[in-house]
């Protein structure tokens, strides 16, 4: 077990966001977290990274409780985020953004290797390395954001809406790359609105509704689940269930 949520509650002031949530993610998996707007998906990501602290429950990473640890310590232990809407440092160069991904690591041959690995995975990023990140297209920014996260050599990659705002061709590319990253040994926990795409590459998925896990299981099964088909795969025009 790489990451586990045990009965996690979170609050923003009086607003109860996550309600007794349980997740468990095995090493080597791609796990998708599905759900509509404001259901607690992004809060889940922020809770993993330590930007939001649970009011109750435990977050366990690699056998140790991490819910009280500062964000930097979690990054050091091997959790890296690909943030919603990319969130690159807009006035820094592409290369500097990649460097920031490796902020807690030493410079040296390993760093150079990882840069080369990112360039091999994303040739466009190499072409643009001296460009100011804020001037890139959305798709290019997504590549830099993923490259930046890989520079931390994460064991767990937490991706928040990797397909958001991208053209369909780009979405396919991004998902291919996510699979490639996973095959090289990185566990992936992915929040995604695009349930169809997410379920096509994920091993398992959780469905979150108003802060509670309402469904979970193998991606294949969830794809056939009528409730999912209605609500997230757009096969019937039923009112939103979020």
């Amino acid at each position, binding site marked *: 077990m790489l990451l586990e949520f045990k009965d996690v509650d979170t609050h923003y002031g009086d607003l109860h966001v996550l309600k007794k949530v349980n997740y468990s993610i095995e090493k080597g998996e791609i796990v998708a977290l599905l759900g509509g707007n404001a259901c607690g998906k992004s809060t889940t990501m922020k809770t993993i990274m330590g*930007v939001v602290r649970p009011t109750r429950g435990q977050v366990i990473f690699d056998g140790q409780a991490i819910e009280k640890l500062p964000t930097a310590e979690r990054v050091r232990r091997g959790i890296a985020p690909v943030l919603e809407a990319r*969130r690159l*440092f807009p*006035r*820094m160069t592409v290369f500097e953004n990649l460097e920031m991904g490796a902020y807690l690591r030493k410079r040296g041959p390993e760093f150079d290797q990882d840069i080369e690995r990112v360039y091999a995975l994303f040739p466009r990023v190499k072409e643009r390395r001296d460009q100011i990140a804020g001037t*890139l297209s*959305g798709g290019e920014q997504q590549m830099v954001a993923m490259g930046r996260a890989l520079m931390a050599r994460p064991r767990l990659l937490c991706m928040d809406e990797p397909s958001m705002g991208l053209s369909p061709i780009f979405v396919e590319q991004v998902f291919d790359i996510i699979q490639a990253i996973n095959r090289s040994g990185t566990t992936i926990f992915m929040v995604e609105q695009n349930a169809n795409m997410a379920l096509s590459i994920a091993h398992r998925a959780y469905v979150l509704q108003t802060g509670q896990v309402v469904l979970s299981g193998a991606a294949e099964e969830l794809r056939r689940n009528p409730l999912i088909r209605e609500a997230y795969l757009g096969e019937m025009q039923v009112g939103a269930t979020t």
Partner: protein
Amino acid sequence: MTFADLLLQQTINGLSLGAMYALLALGFTLVYGILELINFSHFNVFMVGSFVGLWVLQQFGLSGQEIVLAGLPLVGVLLAAFVVTMGVSGGIGVAIERLCLRPLRNVKGPAAMITTIGVSYILFNIVLLTVGADSKNYPNPVPAIHYHIGGAVLDLRVILIWIVATILMLGLYFFVQRSRLGKAMRATAQDAEAARMMGVEVDKVIIMAFFLGSALAGAGGMIFGLYYNFTSFLIGFTAGLRAFTAAVLGGIGNVPGAMVGGILIGLIEAMSAQFLATAWTDVIIFSILVLVLVFKPSGLFGRIAPTKS
């Protein structure tokens, strides 16, 4: 003096004042860049720095106007005075952040800014009550060597001020551009939450911004003393407001912008004193502040707009 000589002379004067304003403006810009806070206590960190420099020079036996040291020993003493002044000023900046501002970090609204005004008055009154209200003579340890360029005069002292200011500004620029912590500062200024999730400890970055900004203000305070040959508990407000204008003019949050803005304000001050009247200096400078805020709030070197695609 011909018009050209006057112009040259005022350029020399303006560059000296500008160097001082630029050092002071950098502190506003560093802190604003990260916390979006206008730090009014910065005014009087500059003033305290001026007194710390005076005290250090006196410890080395430099008071009055006579030259007691020359050559390398003089360079050493000046270097020591700048280092101690910057260290103490930087420490004051860090203390202000830790004691007065960090507890207010998550308080919304103008509480933090108003606190900085309060701290500014505390420093102001501490100096008033301990050293007194009269202005103090600043030693002039640099030999009175003058170079004549046409009708204009360039003092060795002024060259020294330029050298110190240039080294400090280049140092800061390379620190912010190249060093790991400097990059963390820029990243935090651009997106604090994202920087945090890269593993940046934002509190450390904030401390660093206060330390560097306050240290530079201390150096600026010592330059004030060396340039005008006096210091007083009152010097913070005028210089501070002009330097704040410089930071806004260059685009607040923008490090090279603060440097250029500072130089411009210095030149404007020198020129208006020569060609208009000293009394008009502040009218002109603060009109610039208002005009920039109304017509180009991002300043001369406004930031490159981030694209949210």
